[in-house]
C-alpha cells in the first residue's frame, strides 16, 4: 500500500474518515489496520439495514407488514422500519410506480443519506409486471432510481424479501473489501 509523503497528507478527523469511502484510511491508521476498521464499519452497517416504511401497493402487505410481523420477523436481521427517509438505509420499492408517483419516489431516494440501497420488490417494481406498457406506468423502478437487488414475484413471499436483504448485506460487506484493496 503506497503511503504518500507526510507533507502532502491531508489531516482528517477520524469520524469523517470512516464515513467517507473515498478517504484512504491508511493515512490515519497504521498500514494493515485500515482494512479491519473498514470491515468493522461495514459490519455495523450490514447488521442494521433500516428500511423505509414505504408501501406502494400489494407487495407492501407481504414485504413490509407480513415480513416485519411476528412469524417472519425481519428484526432478527437487524432490519427495522423507519418512517422517515432521513433515517433509512434501504428503500424497499414494494409496488408499481406510475408517472404521478415517480417524482415522489425520486425525492424520497434523494432524501435518504448515503450509503443508500434500493430493493425492487415484485414484478411491477422490477419490470412493470402485469401493468407493463400501459399509459400511466413506469416499467420498472430502475428507470428512475438505481436498484441494487431485484426480488421478482407477484407478490414475492416474505422469504424472498429476506433473501433480497441478505444480498444487500453481502453487497455491503463486499464494499468493505473493495475499498480496502485500493
Amino acid at each position: 500500500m503506497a503511503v504518500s509523503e507526510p507533507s502532502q497528507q491531508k489531516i482528517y478527523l477520524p469520524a469523517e474518515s470512516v464515513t467517507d469511502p473515498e478517504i484512504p484510511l491508511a493515512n490515519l491508521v497504521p498500514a494493515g489496520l485500515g482494512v479491519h476498521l473498514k470491515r468493522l464499519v461495514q459490519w455495523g452497517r450490514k447488521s442494521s439495514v433500516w428500511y423505509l416504511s414505504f408501501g406502494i401497493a400489494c407487495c407492501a402487505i407481504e414485504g413490509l407488514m407480513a415480513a416485519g410481523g411476528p412469524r417472519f420477523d425481519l428484526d432478527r436481521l437487524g432490519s427495522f422500519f423507519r418512517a422517515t427517509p432521513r433515517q433509512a438505509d434501504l428503500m424497499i420499492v414494494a409496488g408499481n410506480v406510475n408517472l404521478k408517483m415517480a417524482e415522489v419516489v425520486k425525492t424520497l431516494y434523494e432524501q435518504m443519506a448515503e450509503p443508500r440501497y434500493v430493493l425492487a420488490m415484485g414484478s411491477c417494481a422490477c419490470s412493470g409486471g402485469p401493468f407493463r406498457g400501459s399509459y400511466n406506468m413506469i416499467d420498472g423502478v430502475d428507470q428512475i432510481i438505481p436498484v441494487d437487488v431485484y426480488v421478482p414475484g407477484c407478490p414475492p413471499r416474505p422469504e424472498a424479501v429476506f433473501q433480497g436483504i441478505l444480498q444487500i448485506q453481502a453487497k455491503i460487506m463486499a464494499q468493505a473489501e473493495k475499498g480496502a484493496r485500493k
Partner: protein
Amino acid sequence: MSVLEQVRQNPVVDKSEYYACLEQLRNEGFDLLISLTAVDRGDSLEVVVHLARSTDLERVVVKAPVDSSEPAIPSLCSLWPAANWHERECYDLFGITFLGHPNLKRILLKEDFSGHPLRKNFTAARDGAAKGGE
C-alpha cells in the same frame, strides 16, 4: 307514466332531460348514487348512472349520450354529493365536462397528462413521459 317506468323501458334519455329525469328519480327515493361512468360508443360518449334505493335496494340505470367532440352534461353534485368524485373521474378518463361541478379537475392522472385514456381513440404517447419526474 312515471319517470321510473319510462327509464325502466328505455334507460336512454336526452341530454336536455338528463338532469330533470334524475332529479325526479331522486325525489322518488333513489338516494344512492352507486356509480357514474361513461362508455365510448364511437361517435358519441354515453354517460351511465347507476342508482339504488336504500330502503329496498331497487336499482335503476339512466344513460345519456353526449357528443364526443365537445362533451358536456349537467353535474349531479347538487342532487348527490357522491357524484363529485365520480364526475371528476369521468372528466379525467373521458374528458366529459360536467357543467356546474364545484371542482372539476383531474383526479387520478397528473394535471399535465394529455388526452383521456378511456376513449377508444386514445393512444399513449409514452416515450417522452416514461421518465416521469424529470
